[in-house]
């Protein structure tokens, strides 16, 4: 071992190879989780231009249903997830149709306030139905025991390994992004969706059912959210009525960094936010680990100062 240069405020262990790699995998796995939430944010924002503040709570509610089906009713976990995803998509589209669409002609405040209302109804509803205590056991889409991991470097201490859970999160993100790209780039439905995202008025003129595309955005977001919820619950090892509130903020941050209308941006933004969140407390001794929320807030502020439309986002130009 070489002598380590001691710099005040810097955690020198940070640069130990295996520890660094371990931090990096944690960061990228956390980041993938945020990318999942950012994807839901993007799917709605692209067509409607809204932020859905109830997104996290919708995912939380879906996850509780997965819990009921998989743990209480003993269904296969993936079957339960598929059922819940389909159900969530239908409900997401229904919420858009019944609650959001009538407000489209009103000010931008109305839909925001409506989603805040939904946030409270779902949050309080879950607390009423399932109680305020965390649920156990948590439904596990991926093998989650302590020894369910791939050892990569065992010659040094600490060992460097990747858990199946982390691999599962990455696989989910990749599969979802591929599927979304196929849907949006290779199908007629996707073409219509992208047309509405680009210009709703012109789409209406050429006969695209714009309102249905807005519903599609919500349906996709609710479906992705349901998958994300189940995976995040296992990955973070917590399932209670509040577990998605902070994750949603990280998702928003990821979407903000990547650009609100870019799928690629959501993934890259999510990974970046994960890296910042994990690395700053690990590298700087003067940043407490409970401050990850603050770090993310700073990331959003910096992005808005430097590149307001996000890394991959498109700039909006407006004429009078």
């Amino acid at each position, binding site marked *: 071992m070489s002598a380590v240069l001691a710099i005040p405020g810097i955690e020198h262990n940070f640069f130990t190879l295996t520890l660094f790699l371990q931090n990096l995998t944690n960061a990228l796995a956390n980041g993938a989780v945020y990318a999942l939430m950012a994807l839901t944010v993007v799917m709605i924002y692209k067509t409607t231009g809204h932020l859905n503040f109830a997104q996290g709570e919708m995912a939380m509610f879906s996850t509780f249903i997965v819990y009921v089906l998989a743990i209480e009713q003993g269904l296969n976990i993936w079957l339960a997830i598929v059922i819940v995803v389909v159900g969530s998509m239908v409900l997401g589209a229904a919420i858009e149709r019944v609650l959001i669409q009538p407000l489209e002609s009103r000010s931008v405040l109305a839909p925001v306030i409506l989603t805040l209302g939904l946030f*409270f109804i779902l949050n309080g509803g879950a607390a009423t139905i399932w109680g305020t205590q965390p649920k156990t056991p948590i439904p596990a889409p991926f093998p989650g025991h302590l020894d369910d991991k791939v050892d990569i470097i065992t010659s040094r201490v600490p060992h460097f390994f990747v858990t199946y859970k982390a691999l599962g999160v990455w696989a989910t993100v990749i599969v979802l992004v591929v599927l979304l790209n196929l849907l949006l780039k290779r199908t007629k439905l996707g073409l219509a969706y992208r047309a509405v995202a680009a210009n709703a008025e012109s789409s209406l003129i050429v006969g695209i059912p714009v309102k249905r595309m807005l519903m599609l955005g919500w349906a996709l977001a609710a479906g992705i959210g349901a998958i994300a919820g189940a995976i995040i619950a296992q990955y973070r090892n917590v399932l209670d009525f509040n577990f998605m509130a902070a994750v949603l903020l990280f998702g928003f941050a990821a979407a903000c960094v990547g650009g609100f209308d870019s799928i690629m941006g959501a993934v890259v933004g999510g990974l970046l936010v994960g890296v910042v969140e994990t690395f700053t407390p690990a590298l700087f001794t003067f940043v*407490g680990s409970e401050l990850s929320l603050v770090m993310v807030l700073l990331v959003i502020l910096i992005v*808005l100062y430097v590149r307001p*439309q996000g890394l991959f986002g498109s700039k909006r130009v407006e004429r009078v």
Partner: protein
Amino acid sequence: MKSLPLVVERKSPTHRAFQLLGVLAVFGFYFYVVNVVENFSAIRWAIAVTLSVAILGLNIVTGYSGQISIGHSAFFGIGAYTTMILIADHGWPFLATLPVAGALGFIVGAVIGIPALRIRGLYLSLITLGLALAFPAIVKSDSFFGINFASITGGSNGKVISSGEVTTTRGFHWNPPSWAPDGWTTNDWVFTTVFVIAVVLFVLTSNLIRSSVGRGLIAMRDNETGAAVSGVYPAQYKVLAFATSALVTSIGGGCFALASTTIGPDTFGLQRSIEFIAGLVIGGVATILGPAIGGVLVEWLPYWAFEVNWPILGKLEGPQAGILYGFILVLIIFFMPGGIVYGIRQIRSKFVVFVPRLPAPQEIYAARPADVAIASVQQTTRERYQ
């Protein structure tokens, strides 16, 4: 036969009489709380008034400049902690802490507002959501970039007003002064203080909204590009509006510290922010009276709701207050978009209608055809209303 509403010209003696009625109602509320309600409730009413002030601040940014802030709980907290720390640890008199609380709120508001408001869209709501979630964490943190906030703010334990040797009912000197009427308790005096500050802030805000700044804000809210073309600089106006709104809410927070005497980090979380928004929407967005009603409802509604035995739900408790707020928000947005104040206005307009004062027709120009036309339109308008 359907009776027509009474038409009152603004600034006419009759209109002044109606305004006097409003002022009397405010005084009536004040004397009701001080003299009629029991001593313990006076403090809850004082807290309701501080919440009204906070919502008044939120109204400047959400109601008049059309940006949603989900972080006003943090400004409320900044004000409350500033007042609390200055009184408890530095022995400042209460009133002297309010300017400091307001200034701090203003500065934080500007720092947050500048990046979020340069660009259009929902960025402010995004950043302020982060602020609402981060504020309790910062208050509890013991190494925030090397600063030990927990040692200043009391960390998770919160903070209690208590100043050195002084031991009174409120932990420091805020007893009724010698000139106060007999029988005034400390609670009455606290309510009076908070109430007077609130009235001053409501009047100032009302004036601000009627000034050119207020008109600029409203123009920008309704058509930003159009307003910019007409010489309203969106970024400047929006940042200023947001910082001012943070200032007002911070002062509300300072008053809250006085009224509640104990504060903790989780008093100022996301829940509080959404309560503010709910209060504003229920009371009436972009009205001066709306925040006053909203503050009272936010403080008392859960209390009243928990008393009732509901048909299906039974007795409500804890997190279920959230469901109540949620449903009220959704219902208000759909069925009473302007909130209670607009509802009241609708009913009032069946009996009384206030119209702007019409300029007197000017004979000297009557020779010109256009003026003749204008005069005749004015005449018709008058007749229609009378």
